[in-house]
């Protein structure tokens, strides 16, 4: 089928263009706290042209430094992650790179379904990825490392499937290389990959009455995996162990066996750890319950047919269920637990594609079976565009506008501060309307330390407040929002500051004073 690659690339470029609307329409970076910390660390490398080993002082503004888990304040993520961000930030195509990496699941799902079933199933699955709200939010919010890591799960299980078919060493080698990569991006993805591979291996052993791999291959592969990790992220491995230890809390009465949890999906005990509640609702995330129909059909088909390919998909479903239900046996994975649901749509999408393509197989052979099949696929495609893709366009057109994002005045001031204020200065931010402006301002000046409190116009609690060397006063948003009451308060503050400090920058309703 020669048309498949052309369609694949066309849909991908369309999806990519959609994802890049917020950065092409406004070049100012955006995202939640995670996005700004990653940008901050990449920017620290770009501005100094040096690799970051010890994290800059200002990283504490994101409350990242836990002395017990990271006593030497070394870079927390594997260096490959922030270095790759820095390299593409240098080339001025930061968001293009991020969008490509976060949408890798488009290709990995296509490859998985194409190799397990056929290119049409692959195309149906891939087509859904750019318009999946869960993928979009993970990218927009800035959970990039998690998105990259989870996008590799379909590729890893495919490589394992290909390896078990012929036991070719090349697939095992690539499997190890991609799993190491997954670990470097985010270890959470490896948890899912390994669980799926384990379940699938057990099924193959039961089915074929022999091991699906050579023991020598697994031993050598395991050694290479560990050695590669030690070589590629020597300073981060111990932190991961420490962090896992501190994240796993003592089981409380919330954790343990309960019937509602056994048959539940989203009822995670212990809270969502900052992720909005709608993220754990099928109705909200998939724009209604209509996708539940092809999903259930897909699961039923897999259960009825039970070929090796079907078992692999069922293993993924079972693996995800087990990992997200560890609380049933009293294990709490801590704050990272809800993040596992970033993977949920990558799990559902292939099964939905299988359901859509093979639904006609429930009926015995008839004359126009293929016409009916492609007719149903077309109906599904149109419904998907109408119900899921159109709201995606609205989302990307409206996301991070107004007070949700830094404005040009703040960005220009940050650039001026970056070039003209000495490094290691402490900048007390006044008038920045939300936490987002403050953290992104900090991300723009990685050599300095911004002093601010969460969503407060002026810091009163920040631990560095007594170290202040400069005051950065932001009237820009307040004028835009016509908040004259607050402007007057800040003007009074400014008159007090002006008595002991020198005005060194005054442009576009932004002022900087040096003590």
């Amino acid at each position, binding site marked *: 089928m020669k048309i498949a690659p052309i369609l694949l690339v066309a849909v991908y470029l369309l999806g990519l263009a959609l994802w890049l609307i917020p950065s092409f329409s406004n070049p100012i970076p955006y995202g939640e706290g995670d996005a700004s910390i990653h940008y901050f660390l990449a920017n620290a490398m770009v501005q100094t*042209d040096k*690799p970051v080993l010890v994290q800059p002082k200002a990283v504490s503004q994101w409350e990242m430094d836990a002395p017990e888990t990271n006593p030497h304040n070394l870079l927390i993520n594997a260096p490959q992650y922030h*270095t790759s961000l820095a390299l593409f930030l240098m080339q001025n195509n930061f968001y*293009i790179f991020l969008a490509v990496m976060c949408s*890798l699941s488009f*290709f990995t799902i296509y490859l998985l379904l194409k190799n397990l079933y056929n290119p049409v199933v692959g195309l149906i699955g891939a087509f859904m990825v750019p318009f999946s709200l869960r993928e979009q939010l993970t990218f927009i919010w800035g959970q990039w490392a998690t998105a990259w890591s989870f996008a590799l799960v379909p590729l890893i299980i495919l490589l394992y499937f290909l390896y078990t078919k012929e036991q070719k060493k*090349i697939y095992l080698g*690539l499997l190890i290389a*991609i799993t190491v*990569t997954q670990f470097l991006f985010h270890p959470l993805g490896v948890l899912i990959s390994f669980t799926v591979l384990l379940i699938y291996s057990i099924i193959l052993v039961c089915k074929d009455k022999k091991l699906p791999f050579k023991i020598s291959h697994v031993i050598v592969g395991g050694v290479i995996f560990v050695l590669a990790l030690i070589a590629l992220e020597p300073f981060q491995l111990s932190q991961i162990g420490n962090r896992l230890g501190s994240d796993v809390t003592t089981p409380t009465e919330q954790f343990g066996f309960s019937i509602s949890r056994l048959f539940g999906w989203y009822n995670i005990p212990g809270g969502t750890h900052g992720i909005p509640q709608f993220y754990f609702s099928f109705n909200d995330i998939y724009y209604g319950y209509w996708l539940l129909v092809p999903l259930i059909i897909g699961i039923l088909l897999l259960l009825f047919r039970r070929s090796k390919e079907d078992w692999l998909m069922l293993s993924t479903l079972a693996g995800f269920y087990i990992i997200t239900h560890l609380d049933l046996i009293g294990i709490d994975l801590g704050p990272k637990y809800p993040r596992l649901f970033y993977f949920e749509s990558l799990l559902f999408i292939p099964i939905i594609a299988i359901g859509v393509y093979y639904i006609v197989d429930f009926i015995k052979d008839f004359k126009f079976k293929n016409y009916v099949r492609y007719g149903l696929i077309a109906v599904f495609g149109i419904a998907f565009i109408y119900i899921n893709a159109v709201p995606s366009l609205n989302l990307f057109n409206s996301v991070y506008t107004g007070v949700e994002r830094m404005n040009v005045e703040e960005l220009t001031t940050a650039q001026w501060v970056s070039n003209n204020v000495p490094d290691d200065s402490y900048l007390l931010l006044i008038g920045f309307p939300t936490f987002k402006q403050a953290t992104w301002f900090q991300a723009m000046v990685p050599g300095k330390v911004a002093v601010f409190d969460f969503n407060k116009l002026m810091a009163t609690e920040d631990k560095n407040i007594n170290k202040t060397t400069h005051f950065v006063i932001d009237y820009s948003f307040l004028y835009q929002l016509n908040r004259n009451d607050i402007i007057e308060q800040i003007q009074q503050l400014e008159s007090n500051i002006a008595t002991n400090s020198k005005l060194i920058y005054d442009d576009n309703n932004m002022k900087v004073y040096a003590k």
Partner: protein
Amino acid sequence: MILLDISAFIMGAWAITYPLYINLELYIEKDLSVIVSFILGVVFMSSFTYYFAFVTGSIKIAMLCFLVIYIVTGFGVNYAIKRTKRNSASVQ
């Protein structure tokens, strides 16, 4: 400006993908090779650049060194594999 950024990205993506791709596609499917090469290319580039930047003192210089070494090695290995295959075919 956007077109310039996209062009720069495509060039960068090509530089980190192609040297590995031409070798992988000799052994596995082409579409699988492209994706695997791109992912591993990103990791190779960032790993080499990060650690070599401690030696060179500059991320930019380390990245340029990586690209030169990577591209030359990729094409060199590809040439060697193809020559070995040709030789073994002619012997048979």
